[in-house]
C-alpha cells in the first residue's frame, strides 16, 4: 500500500489530504482547527488529523507533496519586479526578506515542520513539489466521473499561470495552454472585490451575491480594463492596476475611470453604485468564462468539462456555462480554491508521476466531500457535558422527525452530523438549517444568527428527485456550485410597482414559494441531496417534505460572519450559545436554547474579525 500526503500552505487556505493507493482517505483545512479564517500557516492540525484518521505515523508515509513550486514563484516575483522597475520597490523591499529568510527554502521549512509530527521522520528525499495549476487541474479531473475531459482552471495566480486548459484522459492529464500573470481573471474579480470594500481572497462571494441587485451599467468601462478576444483569452491593461508592484489592487486611474474611490467598509454603506459595479464585473466574468468554454469545446471536441481554481467557485458563471449547453457534462471540484490544491497535488503524483491506473467512479470520488473530522456519540456527549450543555438524547427516527417539526415551525437549527466537509461550502454536515417558505427567514438568519450583511442570499438543499419541479435545472449539483432559476410554477411575479424597487428593497418582496432561498433575480445556488452521499440529511429533508410538501430547506454554513465553519462539538456549542439559533442537533443529541444555562451565553458578535 502506498500513502501520499498532500499539503497546501503559505498563501491562504492551507490544508492537508491523505491518499492510500490513490483513494482519498481524509482531507481538511487548517482554519477549522486553528479557528482563524483562511489560515495560511503550515497546516499542523490538519496534517495531525489526516494521519490520525488513517492510523499512520508521518514516518510511515511514502511520499509528501506540496501543491506548488516555490522556485518558479520566486522567478515570477523577480521578473515582475525587473519588468516594472523602479515601480514596485516598496513591495519588493517587503517581499524579499520574507523570501530570503523562509519561502525560498521551503523544502527545508517543510521538513522541519513535518518533523514535529514524528521524531522518526528524517529524510527530505520523499518531499515533492507539484505545480499550482496542475494541482488544481488534477483535483478537478481525477476524482471526476469522466474517462476523458477538458479541464479549465482559473484563479488569482499560481507560479506564472492564472488560467489553464488541460486535457485529461484516463490516468493522464496534460496542460495544453496557459495565460500568465499579470493577466488574471481571478485578480480582475479580486480588484473589484477590493474596490467595493470587501476583503480580497474572501469577499469575492459577497460581490457575486451583490450583483443581482444592480444592472451592468459599467460593463463598457470594465471592458476598458480588459481586452477580451473571441476565444475568451484576455489581457488586462496594467495601467489601471496596482497588484503587480504595489500593496493594493487598484490605482488612481482605475478610481477615476469609475468615478469613485474604493469603498471604506467601516464608514461607507453599500450603494446602488456598488451594486451596478458588481453586476458589471459579474457579467464580464461570465462572458470570458463562456467564450473560453466555447473555444475549448470546439478545439478539443471533448464533451465533458471539469472546473477548478478560485474562479470555479463563481457558481453563477458555472450555471451560465451549463445553461449555454456548451458541454454535455460539467463537474466542479468542491474544494476549488487553494485548499483543494493539497488533494490535486497528491493525485497528480499518484496518477501522472507514478502512472498508476485510475478507476472512474460514475458518482465521482469525492465521497460527497465529507472527508473531514468525525465524532462518535460518546465523544459528542463527552464534549457537550464538559461544555456544560443541557441535552436530550433521541433515537434516530425521533431525532429526524423532531428536527423536521422544528424546521416547519420556522426555527433556526444548527445541524452537526457525520464527517466535516472539505471545501468552503457546508453541505449538510456542519450546517445551519431553516424553513425556505418563511418570509422572515432570510433576514432573521442574516442578522440574528450569522451577523452578516442583509443582502446576502441563502442556498437551498433539495432532494435530487424533486429538483426539476422546483428549479430550471435537472443535473446533479451536490456541491452547491451551480446556480439556476426557480421554476416558473413556484415563482410569484412582482407587480409593476414592486419591479420599480431598487436594491435591497426588492429583497423584502415575496418572489416565490421559497422566498428565503430565492435571490432578487429569481436565482438560487442549489445543492442536490441523495441518500447515497448523506443519509441523515436526506432523511431530514424527506421528513420535512412529508410534513410540509416542500422538499427544500435552507442550508447555510454553521458559523457566524468571519468565523471558520465549526469543526468539533465544542465549536458547535459555542456558536449555538453565541447566536440566536433555536436548536442544536448534534449526533443523536438535541439541545434547546431555552433550556441552556444563560451564563454560558457568549457575545459572539465581536469574537471574529469581519471579512
Amino acid at each position, binding site marked *: 500500500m502506498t500513502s501520499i500526503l498532500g499539503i497546501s500552505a503559505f498563501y491562504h487556505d492551507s490544508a492537508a489530504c491523505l491518499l492510500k493507493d490513490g483513494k482519498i482517505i481524509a482531507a481538511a483545512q487548517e482554519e477549522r482547527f486553528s479557528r482563524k479564517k483562511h489560515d495560511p500557516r503550515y497546516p499542523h492540525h490538519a496534517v495531525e488529523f489526516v494521519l490520525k484518521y488513517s492510523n499512520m505515523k508521518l514516518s510511515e508515509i511514502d511520499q509528501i507533496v506540496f501543491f506548488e513550486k516555490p*522556485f518558479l514563484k520566486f*522567478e515570477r516575483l523577480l*521578473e515582475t519586479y525587473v519588468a516594472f522597475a523602479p515601480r514596485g520597490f516598496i513591495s519588493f523591499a517587503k517581499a*524579499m526578506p520574507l523570501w530570503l529568510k523562509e519561502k525560498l527554502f521551503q523544502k527545508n521549512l517543510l521538513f522541519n515542520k513535518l518533523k514535529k509530527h514524528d521524531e522518526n521522520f528524517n529524510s527530505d528525499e520523499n518531499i515533492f513539489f507539484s505545480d499550482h495549476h496542475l494541482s488544481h487541474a488534477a483535483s478537478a479531473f481525477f476524482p471526476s466521473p469522466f474517462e476523458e475531459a477538458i479541464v479549465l482552471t482559473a484563479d488569482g495566480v499560481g507560479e506564472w499561470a492564472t488560467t489553464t486548459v488541460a486535457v485529461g484522459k484516463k490516468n493522464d492529464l496534460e496542460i495544453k495552454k496557459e495565460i500568465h500573470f499579470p493577466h488574471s481573471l481571478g485578480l480582475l474579480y479580486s480588484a473589484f472585490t477590493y474596490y467595493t470594500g470587501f476583503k480580497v481572497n474572501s469577499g469575492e462571494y459577497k460581490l457575486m451575491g451583490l450583483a443581482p441587485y444592480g444592472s451592468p451599467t459599467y460593463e463598457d468601462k470594465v471592458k476598458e480594463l480588459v481586452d477580451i478576444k473571441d476565444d475568451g483569452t484576455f489581457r488586462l491593461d496594467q495601467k489601471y492596476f496596482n497588484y503587480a508592484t504595489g500593496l493594493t489592487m487598484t490605482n488612481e486611474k482605475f478610481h477615476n475611470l469609475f468615478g469613485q474611490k474604493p469603498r471604506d467598509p467601516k464608514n461607507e454603506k453599500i450603494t446602488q453604485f456598488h451594486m451596478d459595479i458588481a453586476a458589471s464585473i459579474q457579467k464580464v466574468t461570465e462572458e470570458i468564462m463562456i467564450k473560453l468554454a466555447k473555444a475549448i469545446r470546439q478545439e478539443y471536441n471533448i464533451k465533458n468539462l471539469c472546473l477548478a481554481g478560485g474562479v470555479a467557485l463563481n457558481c453563477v458563471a458555472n450555471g451560465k456555462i451549463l445553461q449555454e449547453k456548451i458541454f454535455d457534462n460539467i463537474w466542479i471540484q468542491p474544494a476549488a480554491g487553494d485548499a483543494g490544491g493539497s488533494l490535486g497535488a497528491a493525485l497528480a503524483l499518484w496518477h501522472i508521476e507514478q502512472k498508476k491506473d485510475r478507476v472512474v467512479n460514475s458518482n465521482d470520488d469525492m465521497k460527497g466531500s465529507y472527508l473531514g473530522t468525525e465524532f462518535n456519540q460518546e465523544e459528542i456527549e463527552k464534549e457537550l457535558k464538559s461544555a456544560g450543555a443541557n441535552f436530550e438524547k433521541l433515537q434516530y427516527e425521533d431525532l429526524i422527525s423532531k428536527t423536521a417539526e422544528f424546521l416547519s415551525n420556522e426555527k433556526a437549527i444548527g445541524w452537526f452530523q457525520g464527517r466535516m466537509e472539505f471545501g468552503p461550502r457546508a453541505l449538510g454536515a456542519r450546517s445551519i438549517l431553516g424553513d425556505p417558505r418563511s418570509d422572515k427567514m432570510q433576514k432573521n438568519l442574516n442578522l440574528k444568527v450569522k451577523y452578516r450583511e442583509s443582502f446576502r442570499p441563502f442556498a437551498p438543499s433539495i432532494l435530487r428527485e424533486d429538483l426539476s419541479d422546483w428549479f430550471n435545472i435537472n443535473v446533479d449539483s451536490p456541491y452547491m456550485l451551480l446556480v439556476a432559476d426557480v421554476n416558473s410554477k413556484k415563482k410569484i411575479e412582482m407587480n409593476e410597482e414592486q419591479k420599480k424597487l431598487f436594491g435591497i428593497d426588492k429583497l423584502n418582496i415575496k418572489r416565490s414559494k421559497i422566498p428565503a432561498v430565492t435571490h432578487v433575480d429569481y436565482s438560487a445556488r442549489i445543492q442536490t441531496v441523495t441518500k447515497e452521499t448523506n443519509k441523515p440529511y436526506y432523511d431530514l429533508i424527506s421528513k420535512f417534505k412529508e410534513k410540509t410538501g416542500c422538499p427544500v430547506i435552507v442550508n447555510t454554513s454553521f458559523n457566524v460572519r468571519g468565523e471558520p465553519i465549526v469543526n468539533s462539538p465544542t465549536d458547535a456549542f459555542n456558536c449555538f450559545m453565541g447566536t440566536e439559533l433555536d436548536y442544536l442537533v448534534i449526533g443523536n443529541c438535541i439541545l434547546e436554547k431555552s433550556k441552556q444555562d444563560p451564563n454560558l451565553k457568549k457575545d459572539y458578535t465581536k469574537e471574529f474579525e469581519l471579512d
Partner: protein
Amino acid sequence: MSFIKEFWEFLKVRKKYWLLPIIIVLVLFGGLIVLTQGSAVAPFIYTIF
C-alpha cells in the same frame, strides 16, 4: 548545500541564468543584514568615513 544544487538545476532547466546576479546580490545583502543585525549599508558607511 542541497539548496544551491537544486536552485542551480532550476536555473538550468528554466534557462534563466540572468537571474543569478540578482539572486547573488540579494543573498549577499541578506547575509549582511543578518550579520550586522541592522542596516545592510552600515558596514560600507563605516569603511568610507
